[in-house]
């Protein structure tokens, strides 16, 4: 088929911003309801105490931290696509990176809630911030939790800046295409962008630098999160393997989530011209590769604890594999190691249904990976007196589900007010208009 022209791009992208139908609002309502339920549970927990959640000795951490790590992981694909792939000049990223970035920001916004939800005295959470106060007190910078505060807030701000900068030229395009109050708003957001050569010059340089800064950041954030565990003494946590292990897992789940979001977009907005099979293929390949790497890490994990010869390490491992929570472990192995293998089949890599199913499985698997790291490890630690089984309560589960609602609410809102496809970058990938076709067209 004929590749779309620049004008087509504007047209198609603008089409995604047309007033939505009832289906859309129905979804919004459902999501909003679930979210409010989650908020009620949280309120109850703040009022009556953390005891409302199923936490106990020895599982002082459980679902909240699990879900926190899960969302942080999701938050990885976005910046990875927009930064790393940008530096590698991977052209196929252009049609999905906007959605991915939005996803990143919303995922981090979701994740950011969980440390608060988790804290026993959430109203004193500001103690973790380093600011001069009349008590002359400062946070303990040796604590991985304070590293988290820095890593995540940095990651959030940089991603957001990156995201907004990327939006500016597109918003300018919206401005010039829209009228009335919309136009005024977009005009404000566009900062008076005109696409003059000077603007482009600095813009592109800055964009490159952002990408360069964001790349190490992506890798650092989840490493830091992984150190929440690796720095601790708990058998099953105390491992140098964790940083790369977590980063890979994050990318893995991140791409799965991208697929889960992009495929419906493509379907409902009819963006097949831009999100083509080669894009799906690329995503699938990435999921496959990261999945294989993850499998390797699983093997390493088991091997190290066996090879360590440390009785307690081994006891913890055997307990995980065979006892109460074994089902969760095996479910995880299936979702993260077996399911992605279908992508060895070329056809599967471009089949939306297959991709969708696998991605969902991967998301489930990755949530359970965090669960398996936290709950069983804590449940069978150093001290037999305190071995115990964690049972989630209504509050845990309610808040967990609520967090998904919160995420999708943000995303649904986003796709209707902002171009979920980068107008500029898509155009870049198209052959530029030439009068004599002999010349150019190498793209």
């Amino acid at each position, binding site marked *: 088929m004929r590749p779309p022209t620049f004008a087509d791009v504007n047209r198609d992208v603008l089409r995604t911003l047309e007033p939505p139908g009832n289906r859309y609002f129905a979804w919004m309502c459902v999501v909003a309801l679930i979210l409010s339920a989650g908020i009620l549970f949280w309120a109850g927990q703040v009022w009556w105490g953390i005891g409302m959640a199923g936490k106990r000795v020895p599982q002082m951490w459980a679902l909240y931290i699990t879900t926190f790590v899960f969302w942080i992981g999701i938050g990885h694909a976005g910046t990875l696509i927009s930064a790393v792939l940008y530096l590698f000049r991977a052209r196929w990223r252009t049609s999905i990176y906007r959605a991915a970035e939005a996803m990143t920001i919303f995922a981090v916004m979701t994740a950011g809630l969980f440390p608060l939800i988790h804290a026993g005295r959430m109203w004193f959470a500001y103690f973790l911030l380093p*600011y*001069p*106060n*009349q*008590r*002359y*007190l400062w946070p303990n910078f040796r604590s991985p939790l304070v590293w988290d505060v820095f890593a995540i807030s940095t990651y959030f701000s940089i991603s957001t800046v990156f995201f907004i900068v990327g939006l500016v030229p597109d918003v300018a395009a919206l401005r010039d295409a829209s009228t009335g109050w919309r136009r005024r708003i977009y005009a404000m957001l566009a900062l008076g962008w005109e696409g003059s050569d000077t603007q482009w010059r600095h813009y592109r340089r800055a964009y490159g630098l952002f990408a360069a800064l964001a790349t190490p950041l992506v890798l650092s954030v989840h490493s830091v999160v992984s150190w929440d565990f690796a720095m601790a003494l708990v058998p099953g946590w105390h491992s140098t393997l964790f940083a790369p292990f977590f980063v890979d897992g994050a990318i893995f789940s991140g791409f799965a989530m991208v697929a889960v979001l992009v495929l419906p977009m493509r379907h409902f907005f009819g963006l097949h011209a831009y999100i083509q099979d080669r894009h799906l293929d690329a995503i699938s390949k990435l999921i496959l590769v990261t999945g294989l790497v993850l499998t390797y890490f699983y093997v390493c994990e088991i091997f190290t604890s066996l090879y360590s010869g440390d009785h307690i390490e081994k006891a913890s491992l055997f307990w995980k594999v065979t006892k109460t929570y074994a089902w969760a472990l095996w479910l995880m192995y299936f979702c993260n190691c077996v399911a992605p293998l279908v992508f060895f089949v070329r056809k599967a890599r471009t089949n939306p249904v297959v991709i969708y199913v696998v991605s969902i499985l991967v998301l489930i698997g990755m949530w359970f990976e965090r669960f398996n790291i936290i709950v069983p490890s804590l449940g069978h630690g150093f001290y037999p007196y305190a071995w115990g089984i964690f049972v989630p309560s209504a509050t845990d589960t309610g808040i967990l589900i609520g967090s998904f609602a919160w995420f999708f609410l943000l995303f649904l809102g986003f796709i209707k007010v902002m171009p979920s496809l980068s107008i500029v970058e898509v155009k870049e990938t198209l052959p530029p208009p030439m009068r004599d076709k002999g010349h150019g067209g190498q793209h």
Partner: protein
Amino acid sequence: MGAKAGVGALGAVLLAVLIFAAVSSWSRQPAVATPSVQPINFPHVVHVETYKIDCQYCHSDARRSEYAGLPSVERCMGCHRITAAQLPEIKKLAEYYAKKEPIPWVRVNKLPEFTYFPHKAHVRAKVKCQTCHGEVEKMTTFGAVTGPRPVNDLLNLVGFRPVPPPLSMGWCVDCHREQNAREKTKAPLDCVMCHH
């Protein structure tokens, strides 16, 4: 850059400086004691300045207890059976004594309950009462503005360093640090000494 812009910028900067100066100077005001309303209008000034009564004559527990303590009604009466017995306020006192009822003094100095402050140790270290309670000897009705104030924290947040208000943690710490810097004395700075 037009000249207009330049002037505007300059103006903004000046304004900012002014605000900074104003707020910071105001934030450095020492706490002003707001008089409390007491069941009996007890003038410290008369007892301390005029009659030169030692603080610990009435607050006799200070040297041996965590609390400074209040004089028993009997001790008040000890003097006031005769002294100034005709004054209306003293009559009130006499009534309480007659009814064998304690005088419901209104509390002025209050530390958060997770903070342990032993008067004994401070008296032993020869800390003057006024250091913490202000110039009580000049007060006709006792009062104080104490404890942490949100505005204080907010100012800190935006980078000012206002003097911590009396009986707030920073204020205690300042004093302890000065002590340790100045003399041999070892004023504890260990968290659990006061918070346990």
